[in-house]
């Protein structure tokens, strides 16, 4: 934690909180859709809930960023009265650990599209493990379960990882991220 600059900590917290506020709107949107289409049909929306990890980890590029960002976003959901409450905190922890493992596997070095999408998929795995144990996903029919899981993996990779990559790259273009790892990385690539 000592190698972190103050502004890196604050930007991580602020972005995670912003993500938490976005999650809140997304949760409200999720309710009616999931009632009609069931666990399979609503799961294309899953990826947005894991976007905090790849987003912040890509900007800061330091160990722990993915995990902390996801837990903080979940804590915001808890304190603003989301209908997922304390379970959001636990599932956020599971997703954060998943995302962190992906960055650990590449040794916190290559923050490219592939790694970010991998972190979105690992977050989906973490979330699935939690849902199997807690939300009784094991009781679903095998087809439902497999469809749900594959859809979450794809959604985690696209709406989580890829979208985070696109967003951060557009943020870099605005110049606001020049003082952070991702801005320096892009500058090096341009030179």
């Amino acid at each position, binding site marked *: *934690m000592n190698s*972190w*600059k*103050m*502004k890196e*900590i*604050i*930007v*991580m*917290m*602020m*972005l*995670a*909180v*912003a993500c*938490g*506020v*976005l999650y809140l*709107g997304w949760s409200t949107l999720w*309710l009616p859709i*999931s*009632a009609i289409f*069931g*666990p*399979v049909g609503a799961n294309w929306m899953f990826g*947005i809930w894991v976007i905090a990890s790849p987003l912040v980890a890509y900007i800061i590029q330091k160990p722990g960023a993915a995990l*902390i960002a996801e837990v*903080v976003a979940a*804590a*915001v959901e*808890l*304190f*603003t*009265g989301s*209908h997922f*409450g*304390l*379970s959001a905190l*636990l599932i956020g922890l599971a997703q954060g650990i998943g995302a962190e493992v992906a960055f650990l596997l590449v040794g916190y070095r290559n923050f490219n599209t592939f790694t970010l999408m991998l972190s979105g998929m690992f977050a989906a795995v973490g979330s699935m493990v939690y849902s199997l*144990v*807690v*939300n*009784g996903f094991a*009781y*679903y*029919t*095998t087809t*439902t379960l497999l469809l749900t899981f594959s859809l979450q993996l794809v959604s985690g990779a696209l*709406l989580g990882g890829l*979208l985070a990559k696109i*967003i951060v790259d*557009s*943020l870099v273009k*605005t110049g*606001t*991220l020049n*003082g952070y790892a991702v801005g320096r990385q892009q500058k090096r690539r341009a030179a």
Partner: protein
Amino acid sequence: MQENNSLLARLNPAVKLGTLVYVMLLLITTSRLPVTVALLLFAAVGVACSGWKLSTLVFRLVPYTVLFLLTFWMMAAFGKGETELWAFGWFRITEESLAHAWLVATRMLAFVLLSITFVATTDPTRFVMSLIHQCRLPVRLAYGFLAGLRFIPIFRQAIRTIRQARRIRQQRSIWPWQTFFAISLPLFTTSIIRSERIAIAMEARQFQPDRTYYVRPVVTRVDGLFFGLVCSITTSLRLFV
């Protein structure tokens, strides 16, 4: 969100969270409906002690009945089972899936009641302070989180402004992710600029990890009593119901 004068509100937040997570773990590890219902009733007692007026409680709980019905319906209609009771389109309700639906939906409702108990009686600032002192959360992280929490209303206002600006310009998007970009990009840009200012302001005021505190949360004997009492009651409910 707001603190009140109930006994639960006076407890140490970290101890309270630990206790509630323990009850949640008990709920996770049981697959028997009677146990889940018993723990649900226990959680309901917790909500009743949270010091909120009945009208506020009812008002807060109504949205959760929707979630309860939804969870129930999803498990009943999409769960696995042999004895078919009712089928329509891609929905298929069986005896087994109905039983599982009761279990999962009750567990979910118990989680909701526990988190309402926590949120209703816990002030976020006190909670973070007690995480610093009882759980050794790094100070810079904790204060960063507190700074971030202050921005929740501002972010909500920002999202509202962006949406209104889009509406007045008649900007409609065909795909949902276009809406997501249109809202999130300005939100993230402004929050990055703001966070840089906050960081500079904190460093300019000599913010550092070794510091003194105005209030230092402690674990009292009442906290220990609460932890022991809740844990023993719930554990015996889990074992003997």
